[in-house]
């Protein structure tokens, strides 16, 4: 600050300058920091006189020579404790402020819920705000990873643009349903970083995805019936390690994926529902590529008895509207497209396969049903249209052929969809082995 040390006769003058500049320097900081703290508490409904905060800061800095950033942190914590506001805490003690704002500068991947952080990252996606209290929401990424962010309308933060880099100081990481998100509030400062740094997202194996944001390289394994009219596409993506559900919601500019094609998917939202992960691709960058992926089997085979054939099995009518394909009611009513007299017929069986230890819900589609019951779609149609019991007769005939019998069903562990199913046959080898086992200890 002051370098007037060479002239002894000016020492008094220098002291004066020194102390003046000292006070001046922090004078500004005191009120700024105090305002910053006061604003934080205002969000929690607490009004604290900035003068009081300033006094506390001044005491720590002037009397105890505490670093300003550290002082700001301890005063915030002290007041938070006083007003019993737990979320105000700025993380673990000893995470000393290296950033000028009093929060630690971190890589995005290291930002843990509950922390106040300063990060530098690139906006890779913006999403339409879900509520008027949100000014902007989207995904920000650096070379370590990516995180969702929300800028509150009250924060009066500058509008950020996709593709630009920003330094975000003093934002809060919080967590909702296990997903971390960066909250930009009125105490956060945002500065645009002019240079365009290179950023290449790193993809991870599907088996290593966790709730938040993830980038993968995967193949479209299955495409499913839309279950909602706002849904553009849903299905299953797979790589060498695992598979995951995906969904794309209808939005201008969104295109469906091609089944069987391989894509690089950057910054998709990974959600968790009932312990199961799924990918929302609406925020993601999706690029098709030429390669192929040997998708992980993930296949399991379960042998057991069919212990229940559920209503809705047998021959069913489906909605003919493109991409709908929902099962229609008896009156040909589609929950979305209403009466559809020009339905198409399909076969399916919903039921439970039980091995004595665990019961698996199974869903057999047309080809599997045909091979298992020996009743083709055409034969079923003929029964449905000419038998007095109609579609019920198909249900009964199919039920009588499979209920209480042993089958081996192949499918993916986490799904009910069975892609292959065959009757269990009696193996004399197993019989002999069991005889030995039963006789062994008697």
């Amino acid at each position: 600050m002051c370098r007037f040390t060479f002239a002894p006769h000016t020492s008094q003058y220098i002291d004066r300058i020194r102390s003046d500049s000292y006070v001046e320097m922090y004078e500004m900081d005191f009120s700024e920091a105090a305002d910053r703290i006061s604003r934080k508490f205002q969000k929690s409904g607490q009004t604290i006189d900035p003068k009081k905060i300033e006094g506390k800061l001044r005491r720590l800095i002037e009397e105890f020579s505490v670093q300003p950033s550290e002082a700001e942190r301890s005063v915030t914590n002290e007041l938070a404790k006083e007003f019993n506001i737990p979320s105000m805490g700025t993380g673990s003690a000893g995470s000393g402020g290296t950033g000028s704002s009093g929060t630690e500068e971190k890589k995005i991947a290291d930002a843990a819920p509950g922390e106040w952080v300063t990060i530098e990252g690139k906006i890779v996606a913006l999403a339409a705000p879900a509520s008027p209290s949100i000014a902007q929401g989207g995904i920000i990424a650096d070379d370590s990873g990516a995180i969702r962010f929300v800028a509150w309308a009250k924060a009066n933060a500058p509008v950020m643009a996709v593709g630009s880099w920003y330094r975000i100081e003093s934002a809060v990481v919080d967590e909702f349903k296990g997903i971390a998100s960066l909250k930009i509030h009125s105490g956060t400062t945002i500065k645009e970083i002019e240079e365009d740094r290179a950023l290449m997202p790193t993809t991870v194996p599907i088996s290593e995805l966790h709730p938040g944001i993830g980038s993968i390289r995967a193949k479209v394994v299955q495409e499913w019936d839309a279950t909602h009219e706002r849904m553009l596409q849903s299905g299953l993506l797979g790589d060498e390690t695992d598979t995951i559900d995906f969904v794309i919601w209808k939005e201008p500019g969104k295109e469906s994926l091609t089944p069987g094609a391989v894509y690089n998917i950057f910054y998709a939202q990974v959600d968790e529902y009932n312990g199961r992960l799924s990918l929302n691709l609406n925020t993601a960058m999706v690029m098709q590529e030429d390669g192929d992926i040997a998708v992980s089997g993930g296949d399991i085979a379960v042998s057991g008895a069919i212990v229940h054939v559920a209503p809705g099995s047998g021959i069913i009518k489906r909605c003919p509207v493109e991409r709908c394909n929902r099962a229609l009611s008896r009156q040909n009513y589609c929950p979305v497209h209403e009466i559809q007299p020009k339905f198409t017929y399909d076969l399916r069986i919903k039921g439970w396969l039980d091995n004595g230890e665990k019961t698996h819900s199974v869903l057999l589609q047309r080809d599997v049903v045909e091979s298992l019951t020996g009743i083709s779609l055409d034969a079923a149609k003929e029964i449905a249209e000419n038998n007095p019991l109609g579609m019920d007769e198909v249900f009964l005939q199919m039920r009588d052929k499979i209920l209480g019998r042993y089958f081996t069903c192949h499918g993916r562990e986490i799904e009910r969809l069975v892609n292959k199913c065959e009757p269990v046959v009696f193996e004399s080898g197993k019989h002999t082995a069991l005889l030995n086992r039963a006789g062994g200890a008697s």
Partner: protein
Amino acid sequence: MSTPAREMGRKDASFEREPARRVFASELRECRYQFKDSEDEKSPTFVLLPTGERCNRIFIVGTLTEKQRQGDQNIFYRGRVVDPTGTFFIMAGSYQPEAMQQLAKIETPAFVAVIGKPSVYRKDEASSPMVSVRVESINIVDKETRDLWILDTAERTIDRIEAFAVGTAPDVVKAKEQYPTIDPVTFRKIAYDALAQIKI
């Protein structure tokens, strides 16, 4: 292949259907102890097998040898299903209309597969306890299915006997308390005899 959330509706997300246990008639006949895990009206009732496993539901395959229509106001059907070790007593009433219609339709004798819920009851205070099976579903099957069931049931029975010998599972401890006079090793012999009956 677990149930997707949307299929479960209002039910608890952790809902799992009770598996249908495999048990020979001669073991089921010995059951005396029936319990619930909680006071909740909807919580399932279990019958404790002497080999130390609880069952809320069982899967049996055998020969339906007799069936009988009973009751005037409330019609129900009783039947006897015979396996190589003994007899299961099954019944289906108006609360299981489909099962009752199925049972009414089947001509004896026939190989049948039965999925149902076992329960222990007494005709009156003086009589000894009986185990009967309330039918959820019944269907005609073939001899091969019956043979597969014997393999399956023998295997599960021996598994239980071996777990019983280790003797640490809570239900095993409970079984030792409830059935002090039954030695599960007898069921090993029964399983052997059942297997030996299968002619290849």
